[in-house]
């Protein structure tokens, strides 16, 4: 029944129109309208999942209209097993963000909500775009609402943080634009799928790969271009942090799958050591850095970087597995699929868990207006329900089996073993590091006797907060207990991508 609807276009433009509606509706009605719109969009995105054809790796729900035909630029949309889950994640998270803002944001609430709705449309567009220029325009446009959200509703050092955030990501994107223009010059097309089949000489591939790398590494973010993220998180309002962590970071890793790997497979193979190295640095170095953070948001921001290291590791470990002479072709392919799917699962799971972690911190911040770990302690005494959520998400963040946090890490570690023992060894240190930084924070914030008098005045989570967090608990558990439905969607696309990258494209 949804086959006839331009579903993706609706998912892009309705939130944007909804955002304008919220702007016009004024203070009184802004919240219910925003909730209504975001809920509607979420429901509208569900057919993407339920009517998704899991037997093919081809683009689905495609739309293609001429936009600037003279320049070969098309309004071309479509989703595969990689982008579809991310779109649903986006519409899902936006509902939670709108709910989270409910009574917390008092200053210019309509603007705040409108910014999120507009951003939702743009982000869906980024994941759905199959035209390079359309992608690039939306990619850059996405920065604007986030810039505004941090800049207006942010903390004390918001100006420093926004400029750092903007310049960092903008600088990266410029390199991508150059690469895209080169590809256009070579192929005479802006269609992304055309680039996938474009033969490119090795040197050019390396340059293109590096240009993409700068753009995507900043977004992920990968060490050493990660320092904007902790600052941005610390200054952003709760909703901003949630979207940033849950969705925006995924843009970078999505870029690797949509651009770097299929367009420059030979360069990716050539430079896989670099990517694996950077991923492991993220897991270990950043893991250690997270341990000593004193600010809860900074800690979770570092934890995010560390977890995103698993995503990139899962993607690029594939080359090493495919090249492992000890494995049969079939076994190697299974291993590579395991790792790459693991990376994608980790992206989705991290969307739930990091979003939940930031929401939990938001719950505390709304009450006490501090993010310093040292200002808390003994929260469980006065907020027992909150403590339950905090411990649950803490455990999920530590990768406890039965939660979604386990699935991706498990898959990536298992597949890394098939590439090299030591890569798996180093990656598995996250079992210890992740538990150390997360649970040490939980211990100092949630447990213990109350030392700070203000903590004793805290009130437990209210019905709205319980609703938001419970929804996330269900998502985290569902994916942890039964990941197969999601994997079924991902696997054909990953399989296809791996077959694609295992053939050389050098002329």
């Amino acid at each position, binding site marked *: 029944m949804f086959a006839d609807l331009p579903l993706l276009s609706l998912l892009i433009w309705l939130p944007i129109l909804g955002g304008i509606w919220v702007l016009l509706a004024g203070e009184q009605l802004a919240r219910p309208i925003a909730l209504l719109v975001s809920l509607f969009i979420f429901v509208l995105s569900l057919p993407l999942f339920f009517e998704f054809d899991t037997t093919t790796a081809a683009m689905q729900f495609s739309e293609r209209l001429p936009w600037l035909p003279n320049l070969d630029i098309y309004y071309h949309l479509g989703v595969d097993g990689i982008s579809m889950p991310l779109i649903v994640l986006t519409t899902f998270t936006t509902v939670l963000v709108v709910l989270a803002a409910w009574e917390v944001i008092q200053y210019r609430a309509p603007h705040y909500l409108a910014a999120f709705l507009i951003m939702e449309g743009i982000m869906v567009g980024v994941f759905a775009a199959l035209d390079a220029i359309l992608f690039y325009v939306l990619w850059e446009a996405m920065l604007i609402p986030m810039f505004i959200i941090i800049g207006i509703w942010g903390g004390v050092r918001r100006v420093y943080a926004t400029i750092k955030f903007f310049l960092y990501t903008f600088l990266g994107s410029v390199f991508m634009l150059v690469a895209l223009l080169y590809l256009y010059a070579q192929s005479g097309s802006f269609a992304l799928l055309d680039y996938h089949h474009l033969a490119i000489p090795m040197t050019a591939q390396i340059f293109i790969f590096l240009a993409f790398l700068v753009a995507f590494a900043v977004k992920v973010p990968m060490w050493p271009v990660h320092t904007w993220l902790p600052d941005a998180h610390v200054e952003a309002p709760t909703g901003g942090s949630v979207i940033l962590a849950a969705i925006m970071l995924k843009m970078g890793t999505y870029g690797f799958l949509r651009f770097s790997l299929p367009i420059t497979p030979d360069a990716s193979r050539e430079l896989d050591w670099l990517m694996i190295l950077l991923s492991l640095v993220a897991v270990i170095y950043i893991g250690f850095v997270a*341990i*000593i953070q004193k600010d809860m948001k900074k800690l979770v921001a570092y934890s995010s970087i560390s977890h995103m290291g698993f995503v990139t590791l899962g993607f690029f470990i594939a080359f090493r597995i495919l090249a492992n002479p000890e494995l049969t072709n079939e076994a190697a392919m*299974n291993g590579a699929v395991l790792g790459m799917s693991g990376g994608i699962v980790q992206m989705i799971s991290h969307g739930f868990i990091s979003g939940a972690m930031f929401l939990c911190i938001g719950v505390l911040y709304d009450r006490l207006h501090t993010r310093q770990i040292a200002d808390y302690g003994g929260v469980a005494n006065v907020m027992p329900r909150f403590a339950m959520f905090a411990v649950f998400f803490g455990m999920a963040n530590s990768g*406890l089996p039965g939660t979604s946090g386990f699935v991706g890490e498990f898959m990536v570690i298992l597949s890394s073993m098939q590439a090299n023992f030591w890569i798996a060894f180093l990656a598995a240190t996250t*079992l210890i590091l992740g538990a150390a930084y997360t649970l040490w924070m939980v211990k100092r914030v949630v*447990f213990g006797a109350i030392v700070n008098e203000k903590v004793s005045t805290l009130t437990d989570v209210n019905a709205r907060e319980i609703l938001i967090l419970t929804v996330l608990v269900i998502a985290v558990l569902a994916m942890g207990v*039964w990941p197969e439905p999601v994997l079924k969607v991902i696997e054909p696309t990953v399989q296809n991508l791996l077959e694609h990258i295992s053939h050389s494209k050098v002329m």
Partner: protein
Amino acid sequence: MQNIYLTIVLAPLIGAIVAGLFKVSRRVAHSVTITGVAISCLLSFYAFKHLIIDGGATFNETLYTWMVIGDVRFEVGFLVDNLTVIMMSVVSFVSLMVHVYTIGYMHDDPGYQRFFSYISLFTFSMLMLVMSNNFLQLFFGWEAVGLVSYLLIGFWYTRDTAIYANLKAFLVNRVGDFGFLLGIALVLMYFNSLNYAEVFGLAEEQAETVIQIIPGVDWSLMSVMCILLFIGAMGKSAQVPLHVWLPDSMEGPTPISALIHAATMVTAGIFMVARMSPLFELSETALSFILIIGSITALFMGFLGLVQNDIKRVVAYSTLSQLGYMTVALGASAYSAGIFHLFTHAFFKALLFLGAGSVIIAMHHEQDMRNMGGLRKYMPITYITGLIGSLALIGFPGFAGFYSKDAIIMAVGHAERFGSGFAYFALVLGVFITALYSFRMFFLVFHGKERMDHHTQEHLHETPAVVTVPLMLLAIPSILAGAIFVGPMLYQGLFDGAIFVHHEHNPFHADHYHGVVGFTLHGLMGLPFFLAMAGVATAYFLYMVRTDIPAKIQAKFAWLHQILIDKYGFDRFNEWFFAGGARKLGSTFWSVGDVKIIDDGMVNGSARVVAWYASIMRHLQTGYLYHYAFAMIIGLAVLLGVFVLSGTA
């Protein structure tokens, strides 16, 4: 049978959910969880009857497919054979006893419902662990029991020591799980499956495989894999050097110490190695490693029990030492003896812990044995059951521990493996130590002078029935379980098909067995029996007759006493090296890497370069019209000059 097994697992889970998530009264909380666990327990007994007495078929079925990657299926399912069914019965029975006991022990605690929810959740997790038919679900149960252990050690979360201990327990266990997960990754890589039956079926084929972890050095795949898996067991079953969390876990309420940190969870590692015997049998190296680690744990943790004054800590160190015995059994290929000792130990150690808890209740939460004494006449049931537990622990002939411990010592004596000589020595000496610390505790608590203050003394009385009935029920298997099961478990092939031992490794041959009486009589003539008696006699002499001597020994060997009090310095080293080191490394990475080099150097540095460049360029943009006009004239002159010069040339 599938529905029965499913009910066994889900009944406690439902109890945990009802008691934990809904605001229910105390009565509802304990009724619903006890009902759930009672159902599990009865059905486990039924399964026990079905498999062991009626000889029913092994159950190995998939419940659902967790995920599929290519042709590798990750599944959730049950494998119920004789080994499983014994674990299920032990877990659900001890859990039921502890549930009942908790009504009395936690009577006044504000977290009553939460406690019941946790212990039922534990029962669910532990059953998932033992009933798994694959490595994935095993790992799930493995970490889930770790989670509940974390929650329960930190149950009194306002106590600093408790929340320190639970974090420590979780992290140390994670170190073990780190190895365990790598082991599982190797299993998947070489067997292309995580299903037990499939992996074990292919094990022989990989027996000769070598891998190069360090380039150029060939290692046996089986050895590497088994040692990695065993590192997981070292965490969970608290083997040196990953034992450090167990003594601290005594910060949790006593019922938990009995259920989780004595009878069930800590034995998960033993169970796991026994379950994977088809893999471990293929690696002499790994078995030797296990043998040595186990004997170090058995002996050296026993020593520590001698100097503790906290009644729970004595039992905790005794648990460590007994886990060492079980581990040694595994290392000697006497898997069935390891499981046998696990089985008997679950009863008598739960009994001892719950007995200690009963004493603690009577003493108004005083745990220092120096302030006890003479409790025999106030608490007759606790006294008698405590005596039974102690006799079972030291291996007094006829009691449960005698059979299992003797079997292990015998097996080690027969083993011809690197390290078995040391292991034999450690275990035999350990028997003396065990008897000494057990009866030191027994005499200090129940006999001698009444050293408690007057107020406590006035209120001393036997604990209520919810406490004493579980004690009595646990006392029965503490006496009988050994004599009944020694034949079937060790000699008559109860574990055939579940545990795999190479014929030449097997220390228990049916033709060497001459019935329970023969086994007992044989034990009466053995060295361990005399050492145990010597231990009891020494304890009697030191703590009943010449009570002045222990202090003198302590003064004379102050340095030794200090080492023991210091627990060989493991905690101090870990705190300094691992905890301190990680924080130091984190600060260095952060302050030097992130703040100084990246942010200050690269990010703000490039901003400064731009600013510096701009500050120079700014001088050119003065805003004065005549500067610009002048510049234009110069420019024009230069251009013209170039044009003219190039034209003429």
